[in-house]
């Protein structure tokens, strides 16, 4: 009697295969499949109706979707650049501190320790037009005598979200860039000083190339973060007013769970994934280029 004996490599990999299938592969395939159906959470039988690429066409033709898409890219671009510059400045300052630097580094990481949901609530309060800190301060200082509708006006709301986002995440850049600054050898900097560089020139020509890889790592991590931004926006404005701060994932989340149109939400999700993939590849390319520039590429 000959029994089927699977090859050893398969047997050894089986636990991993089972776990990965259960956790990643099957949900992924299921969601991909459901994006080709009119699946609604409230009507399970709709999962078995094939409608081809209808959901994708609908998403591509939807102005709301593209508005959210564009707004996400806008937030990503502005937030990442500002966070990078501020993180760099913060790191350079902290790097100069000789006494109490360890404490300062810990303090710098505090914003990262808060749940984004709480950050959202906190900034919702800070920017509240009646009882918020910002308006209160502006009025007490006599800079304004009206209640500025921070979270109601579309552009101001976007700005408020940006501030909350930066408050919570600038330290990611600061910490990573600071690590980069620690790794910069002292000798080339001194050589540059002797070679006639002003402090700005030695930063620009020597220090910056050394910390570029760290900046790109931070950018890659944060681009994924912002591309899936949901929590802060959900709490502060819920995508409103009138969709004016709608981002991709608040739109997708609402479509899937509030409107229960899971098939359509999944289709939008798959299109959005490309955004994240694009930024990841882009920043990793940059990272490798910066590393090989320094002769560190393997």
């Amino acid at each position, binding site marked *: 009697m000959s029994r089927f004996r699977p090859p050893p490599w398969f047997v050894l990999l089986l636990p991993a295969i089972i776990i990965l299938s259960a956790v990643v592969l099957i949900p992924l395939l299921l969601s991909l499949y459901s994006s080709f159906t009119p699946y609604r959470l409230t009507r399970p039988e709709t999962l078995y109706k094939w409608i081809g690429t209808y959901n994708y066409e609908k998403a591509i033709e939807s102005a709301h979707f593209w508005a959210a898409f564009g707004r996400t890219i806008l937030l990503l671009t502005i937030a990442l650049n500002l966070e990078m510059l501020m993180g760099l400045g913060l790191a350079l300052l902290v790097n100069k501190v000789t006494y109490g630097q360890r404490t300062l580094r810990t303090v710098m990481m505090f914003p990262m320790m808060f749940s984004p949901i709480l950050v959202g609530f906190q900034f919702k309060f800070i920017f509240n037009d009646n009882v918020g800190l910002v308006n209160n301060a502006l009025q007490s200082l006599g800079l304004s005598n009206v209640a500025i509708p921070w979270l109601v006006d579309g552009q101001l709301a976007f700005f408020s979200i940006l501030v909350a986002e930066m408050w919570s995440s600038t330290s990611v850049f600061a910490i990573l860039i600071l690590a980069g600054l620690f790794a910069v*050898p002292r*000798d*080339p900097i*001194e*050589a*540059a*000083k*002797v*070679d*006639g*560089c*002003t402090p700005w*020139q030695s930063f620009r*020509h*020597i220090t910056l*190339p*050394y910390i570029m890889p760290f900046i790109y790592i931070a950018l890659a991590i944060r681009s994924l973060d912002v591309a899936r931004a949901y929590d802060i926006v959900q709490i502060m404005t819920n995508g409103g007013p009138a969709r004016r701060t709608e981002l991709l994932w608040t739109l997708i989340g609402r479509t899937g769970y509030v409107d229960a149109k899971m098939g359509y939400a999944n289709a939008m999700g798959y299109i959005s994934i490309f955004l994240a993939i694009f930024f990841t590849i882009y920043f990793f390319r940059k990272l490798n280029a910066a590393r090989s*520039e*320094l*002769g560190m590429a393997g």
Partner: protein
Amino acid sequence: MAKVNLRKVVKKYGALQVVHGIDLEIDDNEFVVLVGPSGCGKSTTLRMIAGLEAISDGEISIGERVVNDLPPRNRNISMVFQNYALYPHMTVRENLGFSLKIAKRPQEEIDRAVEAAAQILSLSEYMDRKPGALSGGQRQRVAMGRAIVRHPDVFLFDEPLSNLDAKLRTQMRTEIKKLHQKVKSTIVYVTHDQVEAMTLADRIVIMRDGHIEQVGTPLEVFETPANTFVATFIGSPPMNLLAGRVADGEIAIEGGPQIAVPDPFSGKVVNGQEVILGFRSDNLMPAGHAMPMEGGFTEFDMKVDLSEPLGTETLLFGSLAGKEVQAKMLNPRPVSDGEELRFQLDLTRCHLFDANSQQSLR
């Protein structure tokens, strides 16, 4: 091309003083080597000249300018660092031309200067490589090239050869010497290696614990050391030092032979004075295997504990008055350990130091 003057230069780190008011005048086009054991303040002194360390007191001038408060970029100096300190993200060409680019010189001028430096240091084949793709010796040459393209007033070398292997070090030493002949300029060079100091320097500055012990040409410091520290630091093997007491024109080595007070010192010692007698192994040789002694000499017996044949000569290790003493044997014959030989000590080349101050009695 400029003089460098240090006047009462002091360096303190908080309460800790590491350089104690040193005075030094370095001439135009002079090659001065600062030498001393680690921690003697030689690198700190160099870095103060460069402006990488602030000076705590005193005055440093380059040319006619006092540079105490000038940042390094305004001092018109070049520095070669121990670990090369090349810019890893630039090619050799960019490394060489960086200082001129920063100074916003026209591109043709940069190209010409870089080409010339590459020629002098035979770097032309590697111009488009990055430092990561170069060997240690090549990196060192790039570092030197980077220094010479600027035509600085003063070159500063901070232990430039200590990261190279022995063979390359000898070779680069010669290149630095040649470089100094080709590119006439003032050089201040720091090393802990007395051979480097002896071979390169016009003048050697020997430092210890933040003080200058002696300044002089290589031969001066070798032949007339100012104190016992210089005597043992310069020259290899180090000078033999024996403690003794002066009595009636002779030095009584405790538990050893009586040795006449060498001529240059007669009249400079008094009876009963505690002294240290110093002599190099080249001046203590077994009778029959020695240079002909032209001046006064003395003879005594000594047991040889160990011998190291070097071919043309043999180093002999014995002991006098409980201290190890090294001697040399010319036209050597095999010597067995424990053999007792008659030694001749050339008195004209002996040194005498005061036992208390350790200073030369010359």
